């Protein structure tokens, strides 16, 4: 732990007021691995150290801690977290924003549970269509050392934000990066949906069909976000290019999985001018092979 005089004399009053306002009866608490605790105002990080400001004998000091020595952070934001339960999603945004601002500097060091509220803030931004804000926040977040699950969620939110803002090029870059990372599509099909939609709009039905089917072939018992969009796009691509029985098969499968057709996608009829693409291999003796087999 390093100690230094944080403030000049004139600034002491400011800190005192800040502490008094921020924590009239409580303060942020750091618990060290040694068991010792320190209360004060968590003011950020610098050069890899966590900074805590506190008053000591009417003198303001800043304590600096190596994150490795800290076992727990306790933020003085319980009034905010408690308020969330009673708030609508829209009302939650400013509350979550305050929590975010408070905790963000320490995001790499706090517990998963404490970090989850930061993700919740980004999700709330998505729910309230504040996509630009998500993009601006996600960029620095992605440079931090964070758990893979957390980063994955950030990447998906950034992708969704870019897509919703109509920035196809950025969305495509995000989607391609995600696909290239080799992460499975079982829970979120958005990256494939984005690329498939772009191909569909270009008229590349075969590519659109292949991309939209990609997450669907790996579906498991868990829910997969945007699976219904992928089905809808695959059905439209296969209808437009008359891919054999694919539209009917996919529609039946979609219904069986109780997936609703997304409002955002218009259902296309089959294209009568397109030749039907049948997928049976050529054979000079189709009947015989079908009935008695081929080794």
């Amino acid at each position, binding site marked *: 732990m390093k100690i230094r005089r944080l403030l000049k004399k004139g600034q002491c009053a400011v800190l005192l007021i800040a502490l008094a306002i921020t924590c009239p009866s409580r303060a942020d608490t750091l618990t060290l691995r040694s068991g010792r605790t320190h209360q004060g105002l968590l003011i950020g990080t610098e050069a890899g150290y966590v900074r805590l400001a506190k008053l000591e004998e009417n003198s303001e000091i800043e304590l600096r801690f190596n994150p490795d020595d800290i076992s727990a952070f306790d933020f003085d934001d319980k009034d905010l977290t408690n308020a969330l339960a009673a708030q609508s999603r829209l009302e939650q945004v400013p509350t979550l924003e305050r929590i975010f601002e408070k905790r963000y500097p320490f995001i790499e060091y706090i517990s998963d549970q404490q970090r989850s509220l930061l993700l919740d803030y980004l999700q709330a931004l998505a729910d309230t269509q504040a996509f630009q804000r998500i993009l601006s926040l996600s960029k620095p977040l992605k440079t931090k050392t964070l758990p893979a699950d957390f980063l994955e969620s950030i990447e998906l939110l950034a992708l969704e934000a870019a897509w919703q803002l109509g920035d196809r090029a950025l969305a495509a870059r995000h989607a391609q990066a995600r696909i290239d990372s080799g992460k499975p599509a079982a829970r979120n099909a958005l990256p494939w949906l984005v690329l498939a939609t772009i191909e569909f709009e270009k008229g590349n039905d075969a590519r659109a069909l292949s991309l939209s089917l990609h997450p669907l072939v790996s579906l498991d018992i868990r829910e997969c976000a945007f699976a219904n969009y992928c089905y809808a796009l695959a059905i439209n691509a296969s209808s437009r290019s008359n891919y054999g029985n694919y539209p009917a098969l996919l529609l039946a499968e979609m219904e069986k999985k109780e997936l609703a057709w997304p409002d955002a996608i218009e259902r296309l009829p089959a294209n009568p001018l397109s030749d039907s693409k049948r997928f049976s291999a050529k054979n000079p003796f189709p009947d015989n092979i079908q009935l008695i087999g081929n*080794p």
Partner: protein
Amino acid sequence: MYTFRFKTFSRDKFVASAPRPLALTLTFLLCSTPALPQQKIVFDSLPQLLERAAAAFQVGDYPTASETFIHIQKNYSSEPDWTSGQLPRKILPLSGFASFRAQKFEDSLLAFDLFLDQYAEDPDQTSLALYLKAQALDKSGQAAKALATYQEFSDNAASDSLKGIAALKISRIQYDAGSSPKAIATLQNILHAKLAPRIATQARLRAIRFAMKSGDTQTAADLLLSQNWKVDTMPELAMLNFSAIELADQRLAAGDHQSALSCLQLTLPYPRLLSEQKSKITQLKVRYHQRRSSLTLQQSLWDDFYKQIITNLDAQLKALEDSEDYTETLRLRRALCYLQLDRPIEASLLSQQLVKSDVHSASAYKLWIRSTRHLGQEPQAIAIAKSYIAKFPESEDIYEMLFEIAVSQFNLERYATAIDSFRLLANSAHTPTLRNAALFQIGLAQAALENYAPALSTFSKLAAQTDLDPQLLGQAKLWEGLCLFYQRKFPEALTAFEGVSQSKFPLPIIIEAQFRRITCLYPLQKYESAIVDASDFLQRYPRHARIPETQVLLGDLYSAQNQLPKAIAIYQQVSPDFPELFSQATIGLSSSLVALGKVEEAKNALDQAIAQLSEPSFVGELFIERLALANEDAERNTIIEHWIHDFGNDKESAGAIEILHAQREIRNEPDPRTREYENALDAKKFTYAARLLLSKALNLQSNHRPHQAEVAILQIQEDIPADHLPPECIAYLGLTLAKIDSAQGKNLLEKFVTENPHSPFSPVAYFGLGYAAFEQNSPSEALPWLRLATQSYFEFPQAIEAKILLSKTLRQKNEYTESDQLLSELLRDRSVPAKIKAESLNLLAKNQQSAGTPEKAIAYLQRSYALYPAFQDTAIEAYLLSARLFQIIGDDPAARRTCQELLDRYPALDETSREEAIQILDATATSPAVANIET
């Protein structure tokens, strides 16, 4: 430790107050007992005994608790508190419970029986006692009594959930007693009752297990797949996962790929399942520990239920941790299912993922190859196989990849190359299975080339192998018969098929042999025998794919036997679901009705069939047949208009040429199609417009106006967008372009034969390709095309022209015998025009000349100019060639005579021929032989 609640006990008064925790109750019990009048003291006072029992109960020392409660029961049963029922009403359930937990089931049953017989008042207590009694009976091996007691518990249960728990227990007893259908029915009742999700999930999973263990995979699949699983709330993920995998395997083995795929979609990747299972167990344990402290004694059955689930889940987790990662294996199975379900795109995506994972490499590559092949991308399939060979050059699986490459070559119709590849494998593959499969494919490729004799020999060689798999042996034997059949050796084919049908091969092969046997009997005119066999076939295999064909065949057999009513009856059975056969049957039906004089009925049958069939490729023949039965032009016009309206502009429509020919015949306009053609173009009915032009061209051709016909066909190219051209127009346009030496014609025809391998207009295209190759001095290239054109089943107007060209090509290849044979056939054929016969004689002569037998050549030439002098061109050619040949063999007088005859017969001879004749005369004028004759 649990904190049970049950009604408070007091010596003076029993207050049915709100339930209290057990500790409190027992404390109260103990506090209240000192006031009991102690009439008999044995070792301990009643309060002491109660205190001991309560303490033991509280710490879970059930043997002591049980013993103490029994002790109280034995020694204080004459106490007023006992006899009044107040004490036993409280103690007996505890005693029974403690004995049950101490596994003293007899004691437990005694306590519960006594309680239920004499003291049961409170429904909750009664319910608990019944449940515990049933459990004790079950544990002590009294299944029937346990069943009855669970049923009684269920009947008295206050809630549906308790009934559900009883049903779970009952089903297990029923299953253990060997009655799985009953057990499954009991569980299905739970599902229908829409109980708490946890019980419903348990019931559903258990029913699936029971169904699977009893081999009823269909019921298991129905239960597993009938509705979605609420995976977020259910802890039994591993159980569901294992059941789904097991069932998927069973459905795969049964060939039910759709169900297998649906089962596989209920599974989780191994690492994910492991973490999910751990998390679910933790969640459940937390919830259980949170709730158990508030459970009353009456609710202890829930405790039992939860504990059972947790025990099972822990066991499943252990099994899961001990098992191998199955993720990629399941992915492989998914890919296989997709491929079998005619969904090659998904199969290809999954197999590519597998290839990347490097697990199951050979299988993954094979699936990738097959799905790519299924997408019609044979060259890519070959490239994938080659990439495997490059990556794993030491692997034994490279033979399999070579096999796949050869299959692709076969599918690309590169049969000769495929034969070479398969032959390599047949000689060197590492397993006999692969060697034999390769040999079989060689036979198939030879058959595809219509080289039936070598194909027969290959299949015979395969069939002669020892230890051959019965499936492959049966297939080889059947193909022996097919090769004989295609060679029209019907008696031998019949014998072969009889041999197969009487052997113990797999049933599909036997059935096919039986069907093929009937098809042999028909050309052998063994109608009666064929009728018996066909009728038998229909009866024995009513759902077989060959049924519609057999019905048509039987109809034809009855027709051949003139048993027309029977023929009509069987033709009428053919389903419109098989458009081609339905169309054939309708034509048979119509012919039979006409033969019986029922023309109107025949017309109706055709009209109905036309209304039923929407397949343009099969409805054309029905229209043609219907036109033939029409009495008046008005009726014909109506039929033609109907066809034009519904099918005239459809590229797939067959019969267009015949129908438009009929249209031309009934209209008296000089060129009925000019106006119609303009109208069709205006209406953008380009396909129909193209057909009108082709019809016009063919009409001109048949009227010996070939140049005008050529112009009409070339107009198709000018006026009609290429993607609207129907096959017949492409074929004739290609031929015409090829004849005017256009590379475009050759390209068009090559595209046509690739895209329309079985088109009735294929011979036109073959002829065009042969013509183009011949004109480019490539007889080797021309020969196979011309053979295909002349051997085609379909007739076409240029058939004779094609034969003439083939004979010329054969001569260029020094194949004189075959060429002679072909020309002799033309000479014998009465339908062949005289001009062609004259040309044939000249060609026969040229063959003889090339073969070095000029005398024979001269004989053919003399026949030519003597029999067909009217065809000046061929006659002049014959004279001149004959004269030259005489000159060659040294018979100058004959040469001179021939030339003189030529000059005398054709005074208006063209200059070139005249000069040639005079040259021969001049050259032979000084010949000694001539001089001798003149002398």
